């Protein structure tokens, strides 16, 4: 129990934050006129954007409640269907998200938001030829800049990170008229593309720049933290994420940094991370396949368990980090044959990555030396 009145029990989004104020104002407006779709649409978008920024799943639920009465219509308004798809996508309910997007696009084939969301979905699931078509539709209906950003993202997954950097740099140069969140996104993509190329100084420069545009953005912070962990700079991870331990994905990086530093406190951190995953499991959520693999592999030292988690995660998502954790788990478990499908995917997509490539080479060599799997 708290000892004194001044004890701080919990941090919450401060009401003084203009974004929080805007959400509250919209909420009040909607409560007064619950049938106003334009207000609901704005509020749901505000919740989604804020939830993404601070990395808080609650806001997806709030957004879902806000649009629920329109989702119940048959058929729901297209823009509502697309918002619901984005919410499902956050929860990794990819098949349901895809089905909704397809329905929305059947009725409104010019919906750029739907095409962009579908492009993202296809990219994260490794369906690159389809993603290419989606990006073309984004360019057609959402404009040149969005289309280029879409393609720039895609190319970095196809062994064309050099071209990706060129085209993304072009958009970044166009930047003055773009919103900070868009600039932050492009800078984040540039950081990732430079990582594919092994250009660490450029990657770091872009991470820092992206965080100037979107300080506190959970996704960017966590990506930069991964970069720092890979560079052997765990102390900087602790500084970077000091105020973000509430986020589960950020917390995992803190625990990994503590492990790298051989902190005496590590068991406590590992315990807390395990408890967070357990709480997710208890509620039937499975958002963090990738993170769970890393936790099992690097913190619980359970290679077999990690490989099993990686296998499940692979059925859901196939971005470069999913490739990497799968190969790391197969390598640690000394089961190169388990990685055969992932290695085939790599060969097909030509993903370039200075960390994944040597790992894949080693596993291929072991696979070639080993007797064929029965």
């Amino acid at each position, binding site marked *: 129990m*708290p*000892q004194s*009145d*001044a*004890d*701080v*029990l*919990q*941090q*919450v989004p401060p*009401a*003084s*934050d203009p974004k929080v104020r805007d959400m509250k104002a919209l909420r009040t407006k909607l409560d007064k006129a619950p049938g106003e779709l334009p207000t609901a649409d704005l509020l749901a*978008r505000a919740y989604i*954007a804020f939830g*993404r920024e601070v*990395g*808080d*799943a*609650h806001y*997806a*639920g*709030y957004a879902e*409640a806000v649009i*629920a009465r329109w989702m119940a219509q048959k058929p729901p308004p297209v823009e509502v269907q697309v918002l619901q798809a984005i919410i499902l*996508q*956050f929860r*990794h309910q990819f098949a349901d998200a895809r089905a909704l997007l397809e329905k929305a696009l059947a009725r409104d084939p010019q919906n750029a*938001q739907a095409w*962009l969301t579908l492009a*993202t979905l296809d990219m*994260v699931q490794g369906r690159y030829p389809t993603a290419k078509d989606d990006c073309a539709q984004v360019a057609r209906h*959402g404009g040149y800049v969005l289309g280029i950003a879409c393609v720039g993202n895609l190319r970095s997954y196809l062994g064309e990170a050099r071209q990706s950097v060129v085209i993304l740099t072009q958009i970044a140069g166009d930047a003055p008229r773009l*919103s900070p*969140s*868009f600039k*932050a*996104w492009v800078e*984040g993509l540039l950081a990732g593309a430079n990582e594919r190329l092994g250009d660490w100084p450029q990657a770091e420069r872009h991470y820092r720049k992206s965080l100037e545009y979107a300080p506190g*953005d*959970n*996704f*960017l912070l*966590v990506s930069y933290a991964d970069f720092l962990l890979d560079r052997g700079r765990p102390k900087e991870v602790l500084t970077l994420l000091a105020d973000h331990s*509430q*986020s*589960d*994905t950020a917390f995992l990086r803190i625990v990994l940094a503590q492990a790298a530093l051989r902190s005496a406190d590590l068991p406590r951190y590992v315990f*807390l991370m395990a*408890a*967070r995953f*357990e*709480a997710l499991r*208890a*509620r*039937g*959520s499975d*958002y*963090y396949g990738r993170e769970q693999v890393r936790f099992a592999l690097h913190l619980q030292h359970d290679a077999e368990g990690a490989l099993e988690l990686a296998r499940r995660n692979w059925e859901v*998502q196939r971005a470069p980090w999913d490739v990497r954790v799968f190969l790391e788990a197969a390598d640690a478990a000394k089961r190169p044959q388990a990685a055969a499908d992932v290695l085939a995917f790599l060969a097909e997509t030509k993903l370039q990555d200075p960390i994944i490539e040597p790992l894949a080479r080693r596993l291929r060599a072991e696979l070639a030396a080993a007797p064929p799997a029965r």
Partner: protein
Amino acid sequence: MSAGLFAAIAGVIGAAIASLAFAHSASDAYLMLDATKAAASTASRDTVLHGQWDIALRDLDFVLSLDASGDGDITWAELRTRQRDIADYAYRYLRIADAGVPCTIRPTRMMVDDHADGAYAALFFDVTCPGRPQKIGVDYRLFFAIDPSHRGVFVFRSGAGTATALLSPETATIELPP
């Protein structure tokens, strides 16, 4: 493309692309009912259960604005002075009945519990159902109207052991094992 459309897209563009998973666990509460001390605690022949309900302060803040100062910190003083509001709010969304006859839920006290993802208000209460237990049902609706992804993790302890269930908008009503 119009500036309006671009702004609308850019508003959620990060949402669409950058981050495909949220970082915080979604909203959970933990509802525990204990029937093991039932007989000892009452002289009458009524059924008495003891309950504990842990609700995240983050979730309560969303509906009740606990952070009165708006500085982003919920202090003990801010929470302490709102205990009654919290109880009034929460208990509206919990109904317990035996064979369709409502049982009485009597709040006893509130404490603060630390969970792995933050601090929770721990609401303690007693449930009295008239007569011997027949078919005790729990109806749970906390936060569902504002966040359909909220889940109540339910644990029931009785002489027969421990049973658990997950309460959701689709499964808001459950029956306790005999």
